[in-house]
């Protein structure tokens, strides 16, 4: 394969595979920015994948499937929010339990659905005019689908909201210093619920994308750890949607290349990269000022109770 074709294919595939990573990461960024660690992403994604597939199959409309996936993901996340924010339970354990539950439920109910072909899936789009642009054309405008574009559009939107609007300031204050936010009249619990919900919805959509657009099929455990990469990606992105986009496509590229580069680098090494990168990033920002500039929200994973600061 010529060099040019090779690069184009790589980028194009990275865009496709990076989309669920990106969607999940954007959601998790919002959740963590408000101070809640959501380790249930994997569970929400797979439930999204399952519900999207079955809905699309039964009703015959893949978009409805995506919608249902969003709702399912959101519902799961509300359970997590209830445990973490209202009951002030251990967020790590709550998230893990929801992942287990999601994997178990989707495995259980998905039993009869394996191998069924999906007659209607999200259509691939080729924009005839734009796809002629050299390089970018074939990458962006040939064979992608609306959800890919949706994810791309969400990035500047969510970035803008987080950094340039009142809502974003509120979210960031809740995640950094909930006591201060509370004393200024902000409803910390409500902000956290909303952010966790956003995370759940996007995780659901990401899962739905996998089963209804990327490779329309259902297999037990088909998310294969994407949820955990999302957790790593959120850190790698320094909790910033823009870097999240870079990271998502980068990790997708690594995954895609992991088999192509096999003669030179072992695929397992490349697949382990996201996780190792995340640790390296954490080490990098652990020094004083960097922590404040780019580190995790200070109140991440700490339940907030008024008067207990």
């Amino acid at each position, binding site marked *: 394969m010529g060099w040019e074709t090779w690069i184009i294919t790589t980028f194009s595939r990275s865009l496709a595979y990076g989309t669920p990573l990106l969607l999940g990461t954007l959601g998790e960024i919002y959740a963590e920015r408000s101070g809640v660690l959501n380790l249930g992403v994997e569970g929400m994604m797979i439930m999204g994948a399952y519900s999207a597939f079955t809905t699309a199959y039964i009703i015959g409309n893949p978009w409805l499937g995506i919608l249902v996936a969003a709702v399912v993901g959101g519902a799961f996340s509300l359970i997590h929010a209830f445990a973490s924010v209202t009951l002030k*339970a251990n967020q*790590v354990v*709550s998230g893990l*339990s929801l992942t287990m539950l999601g994997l*178990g439920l989707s495995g259980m109910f998905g039993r009869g659905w394996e191998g069924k072909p999906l007659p209607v899936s999200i259509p691939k789009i080729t924009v005839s005019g734009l796809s002629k642009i050299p390089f970018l054309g074939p990458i962006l405008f040939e064979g992608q689908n609306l959800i890919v574009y949706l994810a791309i559009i969400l990035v500047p939107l969510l970035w803008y909201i987080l950094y340039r609007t009142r809502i974003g300031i509120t979210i960031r204050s809740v995640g950094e210093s909930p006591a201060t936010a509370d004393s200024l009249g902000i409803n910390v619990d409500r902000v956290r619920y909303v952010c966790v919900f956003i995370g759940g919805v996007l995780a659901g959509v990401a899962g739905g994308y996998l089963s209804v657009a990327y490779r329309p099929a259902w297999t037990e455990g088909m998310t294969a750890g994407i949820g*955990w990469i999302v957790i790593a990606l959120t850190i790698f992105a320094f909790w910033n949607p823009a870097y999240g986009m870079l990271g998502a496509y980068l990790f997708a590229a690594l995954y895609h290349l992991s088999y192509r580069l096999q003669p030179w680098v072992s695929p397992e090494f490349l697949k382990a990269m996201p996780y190792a990168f995340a640790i390296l990033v*954490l080490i990098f920002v652990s020094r004083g000022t960097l922590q404040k500039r780019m580190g995790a929200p200070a109140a991440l994973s700490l339940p907030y109770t008024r008067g207990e600061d």
Partner: protein
Amino acid sequence: MKRRVGFKVERRPVASGRVVFFVSLLAILAALVVAGIFFRIYGVSPIRAYQLILSGSLGSRFGLAETVRRAIPLLLCGVGLTIAFRALFWNIGAEGQLLIGAVAAAGVALFSGLPGPLLLPAMFICGFIGGAAWGLIPAILKVMLGLNDVITTLMMNYIAIYFVEWLIHGPWKGPTARGFAYSDTFPRAAWLPTLFGTRIHWPTLVLGLVLAVVMYIFVTRTRSGFEIRVIGENPDAARFAGISQLKTTLLVMFISGGFAGLAGVGEIAGIHMRLLGPTNISMGYGYTAIIVAWLARRNPLAVIVTSLLFGVIMAGGDVIKVSLGLPFQLINVFNGLILFFLIGSEILLRYKISFLLRR
């Protein structure tokens, strides 16, 4: 003290052992009820499902053996986790530590060239060291740089998983059968003896039971155990008393990682006799052990009981797979629900709700 119509809610200063037991029981029952609902939705009678599970895992000699076999790694990992959790180190990485322990043992079995009788002891020792080392890395990162223990241990899990994948597809690749990769089979001397035709590799079981007792004594009667308890209950007072957070953190992860490593040794030397794909070695033992340790309320002796409980669930999962055609994954429904209700019910440990008969 808030007064509401019909019942009053007050803060409970200390939850007695009895209360803790009943609340835990309540959580398990709630989980079973909800799981039952899911069975019903799926179209299977919950009663039938539970009957199958219980008879399958406890009702036959084979079932009982499978239950115990599943419980062994849960026991070892679980005991280690109780120690880590007591010092407030959230070790989510038992899965990875187990795998590295397995790798170390496999390395010894396949390449060390040690004479027969030395092989198994060497494997256990190296497995412990491997798991301990894997656990010490996040501990060092936390102590020196303040890195979040949950994230680092979690990430290390996946690095371990891909490490094992690399080994069995690469340098340690043995014969492949039908697309599955695994290493060469271990020499006979590296096989753990099992109990009368079951898959219970009893030396690991004995090791687990002994360590549970030893750790109980450790926590309640030694100086280091005392220090761990103080740090876990009140880090400020620990500092005040001059207890070194650094040393204690390293110690607990040495133990916790090491025990998970031992579980890994048990699995590959007792069950598989070769290094396999990571999801074949551990079906989430490291994660399930978190629930085991949590339910045991961080008491190493109680882990003996709770690991058995989850052994029943896992063996039951096998049964259901065969007789109802449901995937093994479904045990995660139980695990997830039990864990969720456990932590959700903790609010009942902090607050007491008493009902007023008179208004």
